[in-house]
């Protein structure tokens, strides 16, 4: 009996530990932000409650939050797929941008007569484009052990350069000013879910992908293999898993997801491709994946949280003197502490020592 009771207590502690571990980055972020706010003479409590109200206070605000979370669902999943396999792909940003351009290109260049078929076509083209894009560093890593952090990071700049050139040259819209492509056909635009808010059907696509990712990770042989490769490559090789195949596979899936994210953003949010298409969704997606410990639920929550921060940030600034930078500070701090598993570590130490 006491055995069972003690085991249960331990379970409870383990859960508590896990909770603290996840909440820890936010606690630190709030503390840092509070310190900054106090230093500039603001009351942190007021600011935080304003931010909470601005991100979850009404249906409209919630919709805005979800809208901001949409691209992060895609980039979060795209990052997590690679990270859990020990492939440090930081090129989701570039793949997202490439996907956006591909999606928009299908959306405005094919005849409008395609109708609703434009949407799947655009998504497919974007997925293929980005998958090919990331398969290059994937192949280089698998075959020649070219460090993926360097190659994917560099490819981001290549992606910015290529898309920047295209929207200023061959694909430049003739009617609307600078650095944008023409609008996609109306049939290619993703429907809005809660007008007048901008949250669009891409959010649902993102949700489906998060669920699919969760299934893939837990329920498929390749997902299982990916996790083992992430834990220990030498072991995985000795157990008969092909490391190169796994690396290329996760890179390609990551590209597909990132590309679909770009298409969703182009067709649902901007209705075109524009220079500066992504304000760093790929990088925030990295924080989302780290924070969510590469789990589907974690990614969903992480994306919504970062969505909330972003949507609160834009409006908070309108209604108060608080600089938008406070949101960046919070985001940055969360990112740093998402990486450090300090929360759980220090708690364990402290409990052990007491």
């Amino acid at each position: 009996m006491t055995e069972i009771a003690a085991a249960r207590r331990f379970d409870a502690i383990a859960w508590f530990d896990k909770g603290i571990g996840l909440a820890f980055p936010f606690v630190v972020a709030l503390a840092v932000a509070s310190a900054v706010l106090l230093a500039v003479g603001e009351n942190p409590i007021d600011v935080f409650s304003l931010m909470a109200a601005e991100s979850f206070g009404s249906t409209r605000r919630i919709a805005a939050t979800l809208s901001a979370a949409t691209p992060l669902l895609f980039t979060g999943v795209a990052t997590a797929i690679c990270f859990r396999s020990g492939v440090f792909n930081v090129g989701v940003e570039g793949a997202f941008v490439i996907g956006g351009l591909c999606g928009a290109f299908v959306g405005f260049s094919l005849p409008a007569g395609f109708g609703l078929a434009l949407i799947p076509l655009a998504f497919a083209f974007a997925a293929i484009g980005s998958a090919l894009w990331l398969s290059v560093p994937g192949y280089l890593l698998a075959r020649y052990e070219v460090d993926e952090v360097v190659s994917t990071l560099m490819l981001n700049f290549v992606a910015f350069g290529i898309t920047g050139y295209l929207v200023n040259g061959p694909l430049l819209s003739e009617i609307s000013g600078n650095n944008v492509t023409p609008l996609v056909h109306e049939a290619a635009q993703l429907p809005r879910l809660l007008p007048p808010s901008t949250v669009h059907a891409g959010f649902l696509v993102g949700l489906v992908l998060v669920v699919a990712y969760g299934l893939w990770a837990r329920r498929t042989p390749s997902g299982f293999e990916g996790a083992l490769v992430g834990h220990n490559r030498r072991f995985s090789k000795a157990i008969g898993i092909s490391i190169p195949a796994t690396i290329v596979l996760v890179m390609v899936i990551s590209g597909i997801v990132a590309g679909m994210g770009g298409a969703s953003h182009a067709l649902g949010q901007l209705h075109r491709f524009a220079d500066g298409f992504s304000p760093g969704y790929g990088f925030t997606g990295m924080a989302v994946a780290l924070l969510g410990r590469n789990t589907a639920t974690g990614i969903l929550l992480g994306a919504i949280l970062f969505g909330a921060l972003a949507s609160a940030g834009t409006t908070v600034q309108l209604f108060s003197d608080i600089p938008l930078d406070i949101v960046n500070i919070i985001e940055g701090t969360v990112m740093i502490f998402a990486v450090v598993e300090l929360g759980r570590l220090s708690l364990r130490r402290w409990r052990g020592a007491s």
Partner: protein
Amino acid sequence: MNAHAAASSASAPVSVCLGAERLCKRYGAVQANSDISIFIAPGEIHAVVGENGAGKSTLMRILQGIEQPDSGRIIVDDRDVRFSGPGHAFELGIGMVHQEFMLAPDLTLLENLVLGDEPLVRRIGPVSRIDWEAALASGRELAGRTAVEVDWSRRSGGTPVHIQQFVEIIRLLRRGARILILDEPTAVLAPQQVEDLFSLLRKLREDSTTILFVSHKLKEVMALADRVTVFRRGEVCYSSPVADTDIDTIAGHMIGEAGDRTHPASSRRKGAVGEIVLEARRLTTPALEKSHPLHGVDLQVNEGEIVGLAGVSGNGQSELVECLVGLRAVSDGAIFLAGDDITNLPNRDRRELGMGYVSANRRDEGLALAASVEANVVAGSQRKAPINRHGLLDLAAMRRQAGQRLDLLAVRYGALGDAASSLSGGNQQRLVFAREIASDPKLLVVSQPTRGVDLKGIAAIHAILRRFRDDGGSVLLVSEELDEILELADRIAVMANGRIVGQLQAEEADVAKVGRMMLTQGGTDD
């Protein structure tokens, strides 16, 4: 029993150098240590024995300050202490060599020796130069007291394990350790190396170093220790001066009354050998740093046969195994598995063709330590029925399979979801073996299959290997335990200098013969 142990040491005039009283430690559902009391007198060599998962390593980690006990006292030099961490224990003179070594593989031995306590030329704030000459001198001086040659400029990752172990011990001594804790120091050593280690430890005892060591080999305990303490299921169940006890008594206490101590008679192959299953022809590998080259190895393993590969460690056995299982490229020669040329196939395809592999390196190659027990024991079967159903993993079947495999070798674990690193060393080894035998191979390449496993576990593993052979399976058994090879193998191949220097049928082999072949024709050439 605890009271008895306490009384006997309390009556002694000498103080307790290192001890524990009523120590408890629980991990999840596992009570790793319950009410442990143990007292080690100064200058004593104290052996701790017990089954896999009995809680030996847990106690060692607590005594070194790595883990905090849930309750109970720790005693150093008759005083109660409460370790704040391993650094604290170290200040009190307690140093430990872990079951899995902990040298930094990319640093040289010399760098490892001084790591954390570097002699400096002079200190200019944070910028100061390390005095490598002083470091080397101190290393040489300490090594001089032992019988081993140490090439201090070698990277520790490429050094034979027994040298690594010496360096670890020397490193602790250099930093002033006077109480040494050694967790299964002999598990990875060949017999001759065990002798070297023991003579070092005896010398240290003369210099009044106190030594606490864990072992599964009772012969070693009898040969070296002054006192032995037996653990069973987290408790101390017996403690006695070695002079007043014998192997059978100790073994009896280890296994407990309920245990079955009958050793299965070592059986030999009954039927005739079948077809050739594995054949290596003139296998040659280039001389790379860190590895011993192979010079044209010819070897055959037939159906229904256990072939033992004997040899002084570091003569190319591990390289040969890696070539056979597809983890190392060969420069010349060929490998056939049941008639198929597999020389250039990756490990994955060789497994498809029916090869199983128990790696000698369970920490890096045998297990993914951070992954769950369940994932580790079903790994490799994720694409086969019943775990794979219509392209999806059947989680219930996976759990069932995992449970069955673990039960086959009585692996002691908390929950299937726990990390494999939470298993005790011997249980990790059992897990690896359970996984490979369950994959239903034609040929098993097993390297050091019983390293760190207790007596009962060894008997179980040997019985499984024999049954596998009797059912027509083939086994290539690589082991540094000559006894193990002599007991199991139907045919023995002896390796030296990257060559097979001779083969013997089991009937005509004995320790002396095989030992002679290993040494006269071999020895290391580097």
